[in-house]
């Protein structure tokens, strides 16, 4: 140790501890407040997005009114991917630093992600029927979205099959991380498979230009979906915290106060 290091002034006491909120009892009330705020803004954005999307945006020249399902379909598809990344990130943090709140957060994200993937497939099928004449084609994007749904289901099944929640957290985290490595491989292999088979004559590639209200409505709806996912995940996280740590003193005081 050189003498210079010891002559440095002591670190000033930090006024704001970021990691303080890694403790479930500290995060619990904060999660409630964020969830409430997100839910309110999500509701406002959803109303605005639907008014723009269903009322103001023009009818599509080729697809008629049927295209309007993109205001649900595209946000759901985007969120299903974003949530998988977030889930794997928090699961990885939970695994690496043994942080139980991060693991709970990953577990809380999974059902919403699965719902989004399902919603994207469902609305995609509803959109496909009037535009392509069929509910389902083995298009690369559809197939990889389906596999993403399977990955979510695998995460949730593995988590629920292991009784010890800490072991379940860590095992599911390994699965989520393996899945993240695999998602690009799956995506590209499905895409090449599709081009090799030359099966689908329809392409999901977008029309060259979209009218401004369409884009605006879609982005507003993405915001609404994002905040909805945040709100629901945080509410689920609060439930998970109470379910796992309900016997802690702070949780008991909370129950008595309620």
């Amino acid at each position, binding site marked *: 140790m050189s003498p210079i290091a010891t002559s440095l002034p002591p670190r000033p006491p930090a006024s704001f501890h970021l990691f303080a909120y890694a403790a479930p009892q500290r995060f619990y009330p904060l999660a409630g407040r964020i969830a409430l705020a997100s839910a309110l803004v999500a509701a406002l954005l959803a109303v605005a997005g639907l008014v723009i999307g269903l009322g103001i945006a023009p009818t599509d020249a080729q697809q008629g009114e049927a295209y309007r399902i993109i205001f649900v379909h595209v946000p759901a598809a985007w969120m299903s991917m974003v949530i998988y990344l977030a889930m794997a990130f928090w699961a990885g943090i939970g695994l690496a630093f043994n942080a139980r709140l991060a693991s709970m957060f990953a577990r809380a994200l999974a059902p919403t992600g699965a719902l989004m993937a399902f919603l994207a497939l469902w609305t995609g099928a509803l959109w496909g029927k009037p535009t392509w004449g069929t509910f389902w084609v083995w298009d690369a994007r559809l197939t990889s979205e389906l*596999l993403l749904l*399977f*990955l979510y*289901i*695998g995460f949730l*099944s*593995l988590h629920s*099959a*292991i009784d010890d929640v*800490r*072991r379940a957290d*860590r*095992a599911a985290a*390994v*699965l989520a*991380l*393996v*899945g993240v*490595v*695999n998602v690009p*491989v*799956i995506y590209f*292999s*499905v895409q*090449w*498979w599709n081009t*090799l*088979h030359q099966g689908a004559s329809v392409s999901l590639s977008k029309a060259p230009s979209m009218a401004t209200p369409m884009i605006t409505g879609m982005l507003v709806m993405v915001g609404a979906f994002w905040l909805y996912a945040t709100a629901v995940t945080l509410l689920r996280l609060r439930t998970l915290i109470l379910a796992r740590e309900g016997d802690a003193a702070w949780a008991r005081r909370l129950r008595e106060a309620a």
Partner: protein
Amino acid sequence: MNAIALPLPRPAETGALRGLRCVVARDLRLALRRPADTLSVLFFLVIVVSLFPLGIGPEPELLRRMAPGVVWVAALLASMLSLARMFADDLQDGTLESLLLSATPLPLLVLGKALAHWLASGLPLALVSPLLAMQFGLAPDAMGLLAVSLLLGTPVLSLVGAIGAALTVGVRGAGVLLSLLVLPLVVPVLIFGAGAVDAGSAGTSVAAHFSLLAALLVLALAGAPPAAAAALRIAFE
């Protein structure tokens, strides 16, 4: 660095590779002593493949078109059957704990387990596949392609399957859960394995498919043993 030179303990003559060899030899001996396990996987493959013509109809053209995919899907399912036992038996008789405590790095031992699993299940599946291809009227060239694609692809199934087997070791309903976890992850192997045979039948080059299968194998060789080892450690915490 003029400290007192303590005589360092010589690294034991049992190198890391010796541990790997021991695991492979042990698992193969177990497989040979219980041939019914290996054979039942093979018969499962044969039965599943034979069910397809019964369900679809005997038109030769249709069957020839479907053969690569059918054999590949059946091989996927057959290897799922034997995967559930990869660590479960070792957990029961305590071998798994001594593997975890062994001086040999755990990923290497897992690699050995996966290699033994492939020798006992993937390799026989690949060897029996030309017979099945004959039932479906594939051309001799396509038969060879099918066998080679299985030889390249089934090790990936054993390696990725080892992750699933390690994650579900000692978990209730491990068999079904294992398939649920592993099958979506090995979709690329199915695509390129069956695609290679299709490309060969269509007269196009199969090099791209085989390169991609080999790339998947390299990725699985590098990534799967550490992941499976981490999963085993989690199971024993």
